[in-house]
């Protein structure tokens, strides 16, 4: 008998399971083996500050990753290589400056780089970029291996099974069996709506590409600031330069965003647009050999923040869903928030902005 059942063995389910097991609870993790976001995504650990709640959760989570890192096996490929935000013009440099002030004020270590300093740090970048903002504490990891490592924690049992129905703290497996525990945690990513149709979660498709090994070409994860100033409309397809050096020397290229599709096919036009954007920042990329391209789906909520907390109308069912493009980063913070609420403790950061109530209404139980 388990104390808690977790549905989904992606990075979110794994982080929740590990946090609960470390409290001594017996945890059963059920996973259907569907292609999830954890296996598809980039595993970039980064502080984002589009709003205070996003900053609080990502900053807290980055601290937790840095604390976890020494215990993580090599296969997790954690590196604290920093994020370098690229400003292409004066307008974007102004964005970098205000980001710098905002992050500094919150205690996030960062430094502004001039045009020359930028080229010195990353000689593969094209000439003429205005400058950059380096976030020192950001990093990368290999999320599927990290989730596997988390699930090896004592007190966790894993079972390959597809959940067909949830009813508070009970779940029905596809073979018709019902299982129950003191609490059920829903951490099944993009499939959350299949079990809870009332959840406001939409798939956001992303393309990715990885090159052969070119060690030493790039050091930091290079991300453009342009998405702030380019007036791309929020619902149409968009791309942004995102170049991540893997510990193997491979370069991992993103990022694209498309709503309104669940087709996993790699689309040539979108991939081309994404790569063109990346080569605008790093022209030499065009000469490198790509070895694979694939897609994945982010589970997007209307305000871009995850839903973490008890379902207001389904007592006993706890939600850890809607992590969009930041779920690897925010997994430890999500787990700590959820565990604190389950144990009725004061959470390490304010839980309120992430409560499911903001979309689902007030609790119907006392």
């Amino acid at each position, binding site marked *: 008998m388990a104390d808690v059942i977790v549905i989904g063995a992606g990075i979110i389910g794994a982080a929740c399971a590990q946090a609960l097991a470390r409290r001594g609870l017996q945890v059963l993790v059920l996973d259907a083996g569907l292609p999830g976001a954890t296996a598809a995504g980039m595993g970039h650990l980064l502080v984002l500050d589009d709003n205070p709640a996003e900053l609080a959760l990502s900053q807290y989570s980055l601290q937790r990753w840095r604390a976890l890192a020494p215990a993580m096996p090599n296969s997790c490929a954690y590196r604290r290589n920093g994020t370098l935000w690229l400003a292409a013009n004066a307008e974007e440099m102004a964005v970098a400056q205000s980001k710098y002030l905002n992050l500094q004020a919150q205690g996030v270590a960062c430094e502004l780089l001039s045009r020359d300093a930028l080229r010195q740090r990353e000689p593969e970048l094209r000439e003429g970029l205005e400058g950059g903002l380096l976030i020192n504490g950001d990093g990368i990891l290999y999320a599927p291996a990290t989730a596997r490592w988390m699930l090896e924690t004592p007190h966790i049992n894993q079972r390959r099974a597809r959940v067909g129905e949830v009813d508070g703290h009970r779940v029905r497996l596809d073979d018709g069996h019902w299982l129950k525990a003191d609490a059920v945690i829903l951490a099944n990513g993009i499939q959350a709506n299949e079990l809870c149709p009332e959840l406001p979660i939409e798939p956001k498709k992303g393309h990715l590409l990885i090159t*052969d*090994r*070119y060690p030493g070409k790039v050091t930091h994860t290079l991300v453009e600031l342009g998405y702030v100033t380019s007036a791309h409309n929020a619902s149409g397809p968009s791309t942004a330069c995102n170049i991540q050096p893997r510990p*193997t020397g491979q370069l991992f290229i993103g990022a694209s965003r498309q709503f309104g599709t669940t087709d996993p096919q790699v689309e040539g036009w979108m991939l081309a647009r994404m790569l063109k954007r990346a080569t605008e920042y790093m022209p030499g990329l065009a*000469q*490198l*050999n790509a*070895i*694979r391209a694939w897609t994945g789906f982010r589970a997007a909520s209307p305000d871009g923040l995850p839903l973490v907390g008890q379902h207001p109308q389904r007592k006993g069912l706890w939600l850890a869903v809607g992590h969009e493009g930041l779920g690897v980063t925010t997994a430890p913070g999500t787990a700590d928030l959820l565990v604190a609420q389950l144990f009725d403790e004061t959470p390490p950061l304010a839980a309120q902005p992430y409560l499911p109530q903001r979309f689902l209404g007030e609790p119907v139980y006392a």
Partner: protein
Amino acid sequence: MPELICDGRTLRVAEGTSVAAALALGGDGCTRTSVSGQRRAPLCGMGICQECRVSIDGRRRLACQTLCRDGMRVETQA
């Protein structure tokens, strides 16, 4: 008959020979060494699996999709 240099050794092959075939004839058949130190060789022979990555004149290429040219330098250690 193109003549190429594979890992420092000169190799003469028939016109129209792919680099993958040349390495099978005149090398250990492998095109590269993996991250974990394994020697890796062509698998699909048709440009899909990406196993046959190799350095040709300093650039990463697919050995099965590249024809030998005179003076080519092929490195299989990386």
